[in-house]
């Protein structure tokens, strides 16, 4: 019981902070809009996939990108928490490290979901028509990305002691995960090397699942996409819990 109350406290803190940092919310909305309007609009003037416009095609990918960035950086911010004595206050609470990890993770997920929700509302402007089914599938997949990548960020952040590694994480984790996922291009007719890499990247399946639900013609059956997403999340949550147990204070 006390662990659950503690969990709520950790989540509540992240939620409050999110609501008060309005500049962060604004930035996280403008960024994907630039992708959709400038990049999607520009390239979309030359390319379309059958009935589907390019903006609509990359829409799930852009949602993934936003969620990915928000979640990983949310997780990495624990480096800052650790440098301030603020986090020690949490670590001396009579709560298990698992609770602290899950509380943080749920806080990050909430942030990411709220941002994604705003983007979802803008979908119709980019040629997306929702059905209750497609909306449900979309939200579930966003939840998987948020939970998985927040855990990934927390795992990395809990083992780092400074911001020095942040640039490397952007170059070697976030951008490859995004660009090698089929977020911006279809998965058929790829060169062999790219074909193989996209099939290894778990986010490929998540984007495919979202796109399949929104626009049809998925590359994989839904159960494959969902299965990969579930494994992806479970592995990263496990990694995060272990990393938090080992984290030095």
């Amino acid at each position, binding site marked *: 019981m006390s662990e659950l109350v*503690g969990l709520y406290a950790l989540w509540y803190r992240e939620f409050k902070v999110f609501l008060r940092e309005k500049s962060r919310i604004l930035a996280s909305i403008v960024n994907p809009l630039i992708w959709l309007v400038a990049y999607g609009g520009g390239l979309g003037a030359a390319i379309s996939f059958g009935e589907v416009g390019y903006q609509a095609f990359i829409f799930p990918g852009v949602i993934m990108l936003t969620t990915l960035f928000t979640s990983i950086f949310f997780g990495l911010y624990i480096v*800052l928490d650790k440098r*301030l004595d603020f986090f020690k206050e*949490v670590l001396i609470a009579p709560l298990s490290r698992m609770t602290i990890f899950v509380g943080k993770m749920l806080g990050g997920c909430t942030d990411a979901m709220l941002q994604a929700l705003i983007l979802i509302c803008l979908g119709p402007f980019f040629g997306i028509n929702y059905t209750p089914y497609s909306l449900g599938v979309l939200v579930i997949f966003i939840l998987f990305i948020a939970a998985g990548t927040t855990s990934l960020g927390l795992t990395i952040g809990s083992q780092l002691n400074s911001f020095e590694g942040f640039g490397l994480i952007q170059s070697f984790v976030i951008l490859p995960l995004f660009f090698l996922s089929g977020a911006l291009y279809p998965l058929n007719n790829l060169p062999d090397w790219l074909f193989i890499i996209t099939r290894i990247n778990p986010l490929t399946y998540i984007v495919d699942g979202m796109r399949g639900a929104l626009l049809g013609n998925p590359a994989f059956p839904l159960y494959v996409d969902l299965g990969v997403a579930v494994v992806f999340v479970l592995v990263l949550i496990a990694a995060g819990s272990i990393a938090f147990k080992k984290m*030095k204070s």
Partner: protein
Amino acid sequence: MIGEAPLMIIKVEKLTKKYKDLTAVDHVDLTIEEGEIFGLLGPNGAGKTTLLNMLATLIPPTEGVAYVNGYDTMKDPANVRKSIGMVFQAPSSDDILTGYENLYLHSLMFGVPKEQRKKRIAEVLKLVELEDRANQRVKTYSGGMRRRLELARGLLHKPKILLLDEPTLGLDPQTRGHIWEYIEKLAREERVTVIITTHYMEEAETLCDRVAIIDHGRIIALDSPENLKMKLGKSMIRAKIKDPKLDLIKGLNYVTKVEEKDGEVMIMLNDGGSHIQEILCNLGEASFVELREPTLNDVFLQLTGKEIREESAEGEIERYARANGR
């Protein structure tokens, strides 16, 4: 019960923390009674904070054991954490949240029962006189207010032991005096045992019932501030003398110790100032004389041959940057 020995709320045996090539805390033995205000006094880097963090279960010891409120810090950290409240060196309240919200979150994390939360928060806010500012963001607080909020937070879950890591570091003298008043009030009204680390002599002298002087991870002296000073003598004379004739002075029966360093003579007396005339007559031509009671700094100087350095400017800037780095 009558005749029972006072409860040892903290018991530390051979507690040691080693880092690669540094022994931060070196086989420390220590017992602290319930209700004491106990000071750990020493220069920066002496191992005070490391010792405190081991008591708080934040870092595991390399060797030795520590019992806090009867619980082993390694085997039963959850119960240790329920017994302690801690105020850290650097600001640890969330400045995006209000004072009230900080306290509310703490009450949730530390398992304050639901029906008591509001009442406890109101009580501790009153104790540190922050009722008026409770609903403003911590960002708008002064350093002293923030410290007071953190003191209040440390007490929220009614801990038996309060650990304070340099509670007045970086505060101006006036605010420092206020914080001391609060700590004394808390110890009295909430009947908590307070363990405080400091490198301010004055803080240890004013606040503490007993003081352990720490240097290089070891306790080199432990007693009440009065007794520590008494060991040097009741008073001391510091003088600049051209050709000091020390042999004669050393023979006087009320002189406990004579030292000469860099052209200065230090004479410890187990008596008040009544003999100063006799000493000066025998000492030689003086260009400067000071008669005073010994301080803990003199005690430290005697024990280690060096002064407890006041905080360096660099440390202060670093602390400031850390506190504002978010």
